Every structure is written in C-alpha cells, then in structure tokens.
C-alpha cells in the first residue's frame, strides 16, 4: 500500500472544507493522490471516464447540482462503480441522513469534525480501514464512524 499512492476523491462544494481536507491528507504519513470536485456532477463525470478507479470516495451530502445522495445511488447502480468504498463526509448528524445513506450502500459515515486534529485522525483511520473486513461486517452500529 505504501508503494503506490492511494487514489482518494473528494466531492464537496465548500472550498474551505476542500482545502482543510487536502491539508489534513497532506499531513498524514500515508501517501495519497487526491482529486477534488465541486459537486456531484463533476465527480460522476470523472468516474464515468476515469481509467483507474479510486480507492475511496469521500462524499459531502449537501451539494448543488448533484448532491451526495444522488451520487451514491448512481454509483451503487453502476456495475463498474458499485465496488468503490464510499465514505459520507457531512456536517449533518441527523438520523435520517445516516439511515438513508446506510440503506443506499455507503460504507462509512463521518461527521465533519470541528477541529483539525480530529479531522486528520478520522481520515487516517478511514484510509487505513480494511475495507473487505469492514464491509462484510457492516452494520448500523459501526456505520457511523467515531473517533
């Protein structure tokens, strides 16, 4: 894993959040290659034409043009994309959002932390997740990711 860069995609309409996420990722030991998208539409367009599938997609829910939920539904319907791990990355802590994204097939739900250290910690943890193990044991209890 350390040999190749981890392909990470983030779709978030907030510029600051994109910047903060990038900073956090840069501070991590793990080598990543990050691509940023301003909305869901951009992300989907990239995914449709990309040669290499990303290792993980971080999805903000509340986005203009195409929101995170729509992206998730599209990805899970697409044969090529349905295997990509999706981490929901949202400010919302509403039960409804958590429940819906879980049902639609997201792999992990992250509440956007309110300090930088926490952000680094959660992203690091998510990136180091054993996806196969996590997905097979995925349930409502461990879906919401806590640090």
């Amino acid at each position, binding site marked *: 894993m350390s040999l190749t860069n981890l392909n990470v995609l983030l779709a978030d309409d907030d510029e600051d959040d994109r910047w903060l996420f990038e900073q956090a990722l840069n501070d991590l030991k793990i080598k990543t290659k990050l691509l940023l998208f301003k909305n869901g539409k951009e992300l989907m367009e990239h995914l449709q034409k990309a040669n290499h599938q990303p290792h993980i997609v971080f999805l903000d829910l509340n986005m203009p043009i195409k929101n995170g939920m729509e992206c998730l539904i599209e990805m899970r319907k697409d044969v090529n994309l349905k295997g990509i791990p999706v981490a929901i990355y949202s400010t919302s*802590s509403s039960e409804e959002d958590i429940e819906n994204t879980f049902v639609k097939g997201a792999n992990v739900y992250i509440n956007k*932390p309110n*300090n930088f*250290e926490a952000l680094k910690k959660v992203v690091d943890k998510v990136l180091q997740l054993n996806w196969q193990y996590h997905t097979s044991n995925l349930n409502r209890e461990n879906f919401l990711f806590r640090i």
Partner: protein
Amino acid sequence: MYFRGIISSSKSYKTALVVAIALLLLLSSISYRQINNMRKSADLVSSSLMVDKEINNLFSKFSLIEAFGYRSLILNDSTFAETYQEYRSQTDTAFLNLSNLSKDIPEQTQYLDMVSQWRDSLDITINNLNKYRGQLEQDVEGKLMTEVEKIDFIYQKLYSLKLGMSQSKQALLKERMIAYKTNTLFTPFVSMLLVVFSLIVFWVAFRKINNSRKKLVSTQAFLENIVTNSNNLITYFRPVKDESGKIIDFVFEYASNKIEDISGIPAKQIIGTKLSESFPTTMTNGLFDMYVNCLNTGNINQLTRHYVFNNETVWLKSIASKLEEGVNVTTIEVTQEKQKSEDLRGLNESLFSKNAILNNAEVIAKIGSFTKYPEVGNSEMSDNLYRLIGCKPGEFEPSFENFKAYVHPNDLQKFEKGVAKNLESKEITETNYRIITKDDKLRHFKSTSLLITENGKQKIVGVVQDVTHIIKKDKKLELKNKALERSNAELESFNRVVSHDLQEPLRKIQMFISLLSDTERKNLSEKGEVFFNKIENSAGRMQLLIRNLLTYSRIDSTHEDFQEIDLNKKLEKVEDNLSERILENNIMIIKKELPIIKGIPFQMEQLFNNLLSNAIKYKSQTEAAKIIIDASRVHRNEIPVTFKKSSKNYYKIVVSDNGIGFSQDNATKIFEIFERLHQKTEYSGTGIGLAICKKIVDNHHGFIHATSVVGKGSSFYIYLPA
C-alpha cells in the same frame, strides 16, 4: 265420529227391533199352528183308531148276539132274551161311542144310521124269535125259520156294513196318517226354524249391543280424556230453587280435575258442594247471574273475571251453556293472555314513547330516516326528514321522486347512482349530496342506507343526516391541517438549517480555531491568549447548544415504530462512547441486568447517555464517584408517583449517583428546558439534557422523576411500560 254412529243407529235399532219381533211372532204363530195341526191330526188318528176299536166292539157284540141267538135256538134256551138285552145295551154304549167319534165323518154317520136301522130290524127279529120260541107250534117252525133267515140277512147286511165301515175307516185312517206324518215332518222343522231364527236375532242383537257398548265405552274414555287433558275446566251445575221456583244457588254436579290446578281444591271435594259455599265471590261477581240467565234464556253466555288463589291473581273466562236442566260451563284460564295483553299494552306505550324520543333525537341530531319498498314502489319518510329539507312533515307524498326535487342539480347523478347501488349491493351504501331546501339554503346531506329483506319483502332503510356543520368543520380542519403541515415543513427546514447550515459555519470557525491554536497560539500576547480561549469556549458552547437543541427537536412523538431493545446493549454502547470520560474521572459503574423493552433505539441510547453524562459531570468532588443502575419490574399500584398509567406493569430503572446532588425543591424544575441550576462557568451545560430525557420517556409512555439530597447524590427514576 263416535257420536254420529250412535245417534244414527238409534232409529235403525228401533226398526230392527220391530222387524225382529214381527218375524218372531210370525214364526211363533206358524209354529203354533203347525203344532196344533199335528195335535189335531194325532187326535184324528187316535179317534180313527178308537172308531176301529168301537166298530170291532160293536160288531163283536153283534157277533156275540148272533152266537147266542144260534145257541139259544139250538138249545132252546130261554135266557137268550135276557142275554140279548144285556148285549143289546152294550151295543148301545158302543154305538153311542161310535156315533160320538164319527159325528164329523158323514160317511161313517151314514153307515151308523144304516147299522142303527139294521140293529132295529135285528131287535124286531130277535123279539119275534123269542116270542115264537115259546109257542111250539107248527107254523112256528116256519116262522122261526123266516126269522132266522131274516136274522141271517140282517147279519149279512151288518157284516157288509162293518166291512164298509172298516174300509171307510181304513181309508180315512190312511189319509189321516198321511196328514199326521206330514205334520210330524214339518213341525220340528218349523220349530227348529223358529229357534234358529230366534238365535240369529239374539246373536245379531247381542253383537250390535256389544259393539255399541264398546263404542260407548271408548267414546266415554275419549270424552273423559278430552275433559281430563283439556286445559279448560269443565263443570256442570244443577240449579237449587226455592219454593217459588227461583234459582238461589247451584250445586257442582261435575268438575274436571283442572279445577285443582286453578283453585287448589281437588275436584272430588268440590263436587256436591254449593257454588255459594265453595266460591262465594261468584255470587257477586256476575257468574251466578250469568248461570241463571243462561238457564232462563238458554243462550250461551260468557264472562271473564279474576280470582285470587294462593295470593295469585288468576283470570278466568267462563262459557256457560244450558244442558238439560243444568248449566254446562267451560272455564279457560286466561291469566297469561291477560298478562300478555297487558304486556303488549305496556310495550306499545314504551314503543310510543321511544318513537317520540327517536323523533326528538332525529331533530336534535339533524337526522331523518326513510323506508322504501322497491317492489311496491312506495316510501315512508320520517317527520324530521321533511323538516331537514325545510318542509312541514307530510307536506308532500313521501317518494324518492318528490325528495329528488330538492337535491342539488349538480348532485342528481350522484344521488341516483347511490340509489341504484343500494338496490344492487347488500352492503351499507353511503351517498353524499347537496340539498337546496325549500327556503333556498344549501345543505350537505349524507344518506346511509341498506337493502334488507324482511318477511320476503325487500325494503331499503336509510338514515339521512344533515352534515353541513361537519363539512364546514372538515373544511376548517383541512385548512388547519394544511397550516400545520406548512408549519411542520417550516420546522423541518428550520431543523435542517440548524443542523446543517448553522452548524456548518460554526464548525468551520472551530476548525480554524483549532488550526490557529495549533500553529499561531504561541505568537499571541497574554491578553490575546485569554481572548482566544474565550472565543474557543464560546464556539464550543454554541456547538453543544446547537447539538442539544437539535436532539431535543428531533425527539418527536411521531415515532411509533417501536422495536425490541436490549437496554443492556444500549447501556454498553453509551459506556463505550463515554469510556474516555469514565476513565478520566475514575467512575465506578455498578449495574444490574436491564430489561428488554419496546422503544426507539437511538432515543434509549440518548437517554442513558444524558443520564450518565450528568452523573459524571456532577460527580462528587470528595468521594470516589459511583453510578448505580438498578432495574426491576413493578405493578402499577406499587408506583408511588402519579402519572397516566396505561400499562399494568412497568420496568423501574433507577440511575443513582453519589454526586453533588441538588435541592429536592428543584426536582421537577430540572426537567424543564433551558433550566440550569448552576452557573455557566461552574458546570458546562445547556439545560437541555434532562428535558430531552423527559421527552424521551414521555414518548415511551413512561415517567421520569428525580430525588436528591445536596452533597449526597441524586437518583433518577424511570418507569417504562413492561
């Protein structure tokens, strides 16, 4: 059937009796005559035989006379004359006998006359002979000879006469013998016939009588049976009259056993008694007068009156008819009929009053009712149905066509469709339509009707309700509902704003505070450091406030999808989440086995989270902190606090700590939103935590309350339906 047989036979019996007697008399007379004839012929035969005997007797005398005559002639016996006289008298007797015997037979009489003549000649001759014999003269000889010749001649004549007589007698005898034989042959036969016929008559008569007797017996038994088993009391009275012939009383000649059922006195005791003695009331209650009237007029009378037997009122109806010299009375107990008619009258009254109530109810409830007979085509409409359409009751002929005139033109189709549907289905049909009343008011009506079959007749029964006020209310409610929906949607969007849009900038503030803190803190002045800390704290507080507020608003009662929750697992999860703080504060948690309840999982989690957080937050500063979680199942009667207990049993969960506690005065206040007992600076808190707990427990139809002693600790009691 028996009666008719008996009555009709009495006439035929008389005829049969007369015929039988006539036949018997005829046969008897025939028999008598026959016997008489036989006797006569026997007499005749015997008389014939007697004649024979007498003839022989007579002629034997003649023979004797002849013999003696010859003897005397030869011997010249002079005694001959005397002997002759003797024989001569003997012949007289025989002659007399013979003439007596044969006086009916002319031939014999003729013969006898001739014999008599010849005897007289013989007399003369013998006299002459006797006269000559003494003379002894010559010519006497000749004379004697002449006389002897004469005698010979007479004898010859007599013998020939005897022969003739004998022959005649023989012929007669033969004839009589034949007649006698015939008679002897017929007489026993006729007698036999008489006997046989008598026997037949006797047998037939016996048979008839016996049959009649049998019939009579069975008829009597049948009648007896009727009388005994009849529910009617049958009595027969003989009138008692005074000297002037006026009826003063009646005597029971007969009473059927039923009288014991009615009066309690056995029939045997009653029969023979006087009416005035056994039932004195009858003398005044009209019964006696009725009997008298019945006897005097011969009319059939009836009377219904009551008696009291054994403290029970018994109604009796008596029908009296004259029978011979007495009164035959049939009495029927009509207590039940009387009772029934009383009941019926009562029922009618109550029905009437109920109808009145119903009519009033219709007015009050703005309801009308109708009945339609689709087969016959006519209808009935209740008074209030007329009123509902602004008419006077009975203002028009009750029919659907007439009622239809008041239906709103735009709803006519709907109305008719409803009527048609009613006829097809056997279910209750509801039709809503508008009515324009006679005074031009628009009303909303609802008809509920049903097709039923009663006694093979189809009829539609229905209720018409003026639902104008309901429709108006519905419309108001609809508007309110829409407003509520709008406000709900607004609240929802507000939630969204708070949860996302408000948190978003705050989070970013905190994020940059943290970045600033990490990188630039060391460059701040002492004052700047203080300011920076205040910013950091305020941001943190704001975030907490927003989060709690969100949680509070999210706990709404609309959640009804209760699931089974193992509270032990929930508690473990909460402990896990709070593990850092628990370790940090060195809290000891003692817990009992918790129940499995029905509820909303995240709310239960929130509940435990808030309670444990509080216990940690307000832990004792002096003692080792301890949290005890206890659970038990209690009956609702064992719960000392009052709240609406919908369930029979409750789970009692107690979370107690040995923390700083609070004044018991504030025990209810703490569950109110934004209520804080402590200064902001002392303890961080928003004043929402326990309010959330209360809301959660309320949502689960339970109850939460707290007891506390300052400095000793607090206990939170939660009751959840078991």
